[in-house]
């Protein structure tokens, strides 16, 4: 590969920086470019799903398939924009927007009950299964071990229901108050 920074001109760096709203410094963009080229082994100008999955740490992540749908076919500029939500300079609003996008798989600005259920399934795998209820032997009360029931219960407590369509402002209300920690450090040589 050789010196990849020589392929990125100052003009390119500034363009990318503008596109991601100055989320990364110029040095970080150069590092990200080196990383992008390292991942893009066949030199196609974008990193394919296979190439992302060749990173074991990424492949074992429960949300990898969801993220792959968002990452597929991105060129370098879009790749940096994708990662901008993880910059320490990104606002809480930007981070919540990113989380919203992960949920809103059809991109219509509304998160349905099924969208949330899908993500919950990704995170819990087979360990909370469908339609399985056990009985707590001590209290002799039914224990809900079903994703749908868990989600419905928690939604209702928060003032929503199964039919609710959550929008961005709902997400801000729910997640905004918590200290959202979503930062990644870009290694700079």
């Amino acid at each position: 590969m050789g010196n990849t920074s020589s392929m990125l001109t100052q003009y390119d760096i500034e363009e990318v920086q503008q596109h991601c709203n100055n989320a990364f410094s110029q040095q970080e963009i150069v590092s990200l470019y080196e990383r992008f080229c390292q991942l893009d082994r066949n030199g196609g100008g974008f990193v394919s799903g296979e190439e992302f999955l060749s990173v074991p740490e990424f492949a074992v992540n429960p949300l990898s398939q969801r993220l792959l749908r968002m990452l597929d076919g991105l060129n370098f500029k879009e790749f940096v924009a994708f990662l901008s939500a993880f910059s320490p300079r990104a606002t809480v609003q930007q981070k919540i927007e990113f989380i919203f996008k992960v949920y809103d798989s059809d991109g219509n600005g509304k998160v349905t009950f099924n969208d949330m259920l899908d993500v919950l399934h990704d995170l819990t795998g087979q360990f909370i299964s469908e339609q399985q209820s056990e009985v707590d032997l001590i209290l002799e009360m039914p224990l809900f071990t079903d994703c749908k029931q868990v989600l419905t219960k928690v939604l209702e407590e928060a003032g929503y229901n199964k039919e609710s369509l959550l929008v961005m402002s709902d997400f801000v209300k729910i997640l905004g108050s918590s200290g959202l920690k979503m930062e990644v450090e870009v290694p700079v040589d």
Partner: protein
Amino acid sequence: MNSSEGKLKSSSSELDLDRPNIEDYLPSGSSIQEPHGKLRLRDLLDISPALTEAAGAIVDDSFTRCFKSNPPELWNWNVYLFPLWCCGVVFRALVLTIGWIIFLSCFIPVHFLLKGNDNLRKKMERALVELICSFFVASWTGVVKYHGPRPSMRPKQVFVANHTSMIDFIILEQMTAFAVIMQKHPGWVGLLQSTILESVGCIWFNRSEAKDREIVTRKLREHSQGADNNPLLIFPEGTCVNNQYSVMFKKGAFELGCTVCPIAIKYNKIFVDAFWNSRKQSFTMHLLQLMTSWAVVCDVWYLEPQNLRPGETPIEFAERIRDIISVRAGLKKVPWDGYLKYSRPSPKHRERKQQSFAESVLRGLELEEK
């Protein structure tokens, strides 16, 4: 790599072997938020820890770092060094050619004429292999410092070393004729393997075949028990790593019931990056690169032989030896299996994360019921 479902399954069962807890190595902090107290909508919707981990892996990951090679820097492109360098390359090529001539002119007669007298033939072939390795090392202007007592030929002992390039074998072989276990390669290397290396007693394996493991384990055991055989040299990492990190050791070498003698090899990167990046270079190109660089300088430490402690599993044993070698050679340990270069990680890791999140969700619910 195009692998059919069947093949992927078999390799994941390889990786499925119980191994030291990966969580011991990775940065602390669960990847999925563990809700405290009563379960709220916030706890279920906040996927930021999992996302952060994924983004962290995209930006930089410990596995890819193991196989990163430094780009070669041009140091000889000036008036006074260039002619010297040219002379150097010519001289080295000459040394290597002379070495091969001497070797072949001795080896071929010995191999065929002494067919009857096996003992003497083996002794001479061993000495000749050591000789040609010395010539190889000389052709790279190799400066190898050996530390520690030279290995002795005893039955029931195997040698393990960290792996950076196929030249590891040549560097070690010039001191002692080891028998080695290698991946069968195509081309001229394969030819060398089947003719010359046969004489020192080598075992072949094929990474892509699942059943291969059992056959190889059996061969290893047979070889290590034999008193006559050359001491066995194994690279438990199973693949070349860039000499700054060490990947997980495969347990095969550690369950043979033998004493394990660790060897640590460290190359001095100032002179050349000896890491053979098999994805980027063929072995021929790699050798040429070595021959045209300044020098190959490395340290070899023969470390104290270790035995399986009572109550220790072969995997713990392997990790202990990896620790000894990594400390000596200044390598950082990573929890990945080298074969992840060729196949996907086992679903076990993802399942473990999913399980811990599921448990904490259920726990949060329980707190309400009670």
